[in-house]
């Protein structure tokens, strides 16, 4: 009996919808005069991150994000850029995680992270003209105004301990994941804002508020969909952060990350800008009512 691989065949409708979503995203950015760009997947250095491990490829690495290349283009005078590409993160496999996944990143000079919030609202309106996402047991109205919650408020409202206690006891992620995230983006999308400065990554510190970074994460139905920054453009501070993150990695016994020197060298030429990374696979999960990331890609590592 020559029966087709049913596990693959049954995904056809979702994969067709996925293709339409990606086409719509492209059309959205092209209409807004963004330049679509392609940058190398295999690179000599990623931005060091304490908790993101790159996949090694000979003595280079597969990208964990196209962020550094995109910012070098901003520094060279490109003003509005987007990219849809594959990124790789070692060991990340779960209901919402694939070690190889598809990322949408867009960057724009002359704006800050608040302008990116408005662009997220616009993009979702284009992708979901009916204004409502129904996902599993949730129904989310994606028309403006979206809910905005600072990380501190989120802990006060939803967690058993305060933000300061969570940070001091190294339980930030545990509490965020188990107590807070399930409550985010339940009726409206939630913008989780004002990350503690210690979790700034590549975001700039908020002017006049040295304890928080201009970073937000977008949540819909408890699912973390996008991470955005007002970009840090101070090369000295950026190098210090990279070195500190590299030190954290070394202490934890992780593989060393070389510093991305060309990026650091060109950062002084980069104008004020904001950028955002949005997980396409999770977006497709939300828009196809799929409970598992494996449902929205043809192949997972397990069936290769």
């Amino acid at each position: 009996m020559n029966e087709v691989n049913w596990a693959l065949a049954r995904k056809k409708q979702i994969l067709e919808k996925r293709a339409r979503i990606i086409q719509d995203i492209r059309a959205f950015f092209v209409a807004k005069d963004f330049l679509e760009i392609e940058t190398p997947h295999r690179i000599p250095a990623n931005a060091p991150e304490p908790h993101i491990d790159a996949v090694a490829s000979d003595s280079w690495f597969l990208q964990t994000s196209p962020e550094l290349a995109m910012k070098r283009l901003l520094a060279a005078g490109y003003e509005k850029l987007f990219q849809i590409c594959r990124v790789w993160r070692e060991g990340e496999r779960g209901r919402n995680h694939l070690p190889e996944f598809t990322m949408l990143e867009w960057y724009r000079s002359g704006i800050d992270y608040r302008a990116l919030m408005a662009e997220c609202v616009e993009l979702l309106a284009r992708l979901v003209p009916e204004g409502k996402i129904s996902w599993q047991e949730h129904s989310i109205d994606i028309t403006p105004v979206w809910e905005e919650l600072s990380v501190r408020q989120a802990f006060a409202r939803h967690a058993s301990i305060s933000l300061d206690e969570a940070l001091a006891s190294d339980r930030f992620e545990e509490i965020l994941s188990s107590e807070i995230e399930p409550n985010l983006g339940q009726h409206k999308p939630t913008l989780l804002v004002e990350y503690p400065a210690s979790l700034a990554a590549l975001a700039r510190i908020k002017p006049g508020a040295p304890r928080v970074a201009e970073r937000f994460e977008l949540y819909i139905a408890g699912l973390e969909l996008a991470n955005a920054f007002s970009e840090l453009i101070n090369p000295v501070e950026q190098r210090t952060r990279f070195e500190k993150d590299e030190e954290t990695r070394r202490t934890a016994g992780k593989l060393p990350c070389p510093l991305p020197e060309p990026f650091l060298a060109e950062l002084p030429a980069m104008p004020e800008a904001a950028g955002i990374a949005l997980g396409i696979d999770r977006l497709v999960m939300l828009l196809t009512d799929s409970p598992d990331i494996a449902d929205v890609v043809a192949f997972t590592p397990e069936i290769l």
Partner: protein
Amino acid sequence: MYSCADLKKGLKLIIDGEPHVVVQFDFTKPGKGQALYKCKLRNMITGSLFDRTYRSGESFEPASLEERDMQYLYQDESGYVFMDNKTYEQTVLDADTLGDDKYFLVDNMEVKILLFDERGIGVTLPIFVNLRVTQSDPWVKGDTAAGNNKPATIETGYTLQVPSFVEEGTLIQIDTRTGEYVTRVKE
């Protein structure tokens, strides 16, 4: 020793001196933060279920449990009865201990029974088993698209999604790791 990267459904490890099995597993990683490995664990002695979240860097002692080749005989009021192929001794497992595995038992099937203190605490099934569909709505004429599916119930009472062309009475192959339909079986 196991690391967090080894955690998955079915892994058996020692926690506080007692053997446990991972019955549900998910990996998560909020924001750019550290990875969390969320497990639902069953204590294989007391049967109690509980949730525990681990972080990268933790390590676990494997539970070295004895596995014996046995044959599944039948189910009666005492539970699910297996027989040791060498000694002919019988071991009974209850429905709770077997979980969903109980739906994939076929009479006379060769399995491995996991023992702790001579007590059966789990079963290792063949990866693929063949079971018959006992109830499924008829195929809708004209529905020829590959990938269309419908629910079907098999002889053990388990319900799963199957392609729309699978009819009542059809013998199908099921992947016991996922509980999902694989293919029809030629008879």
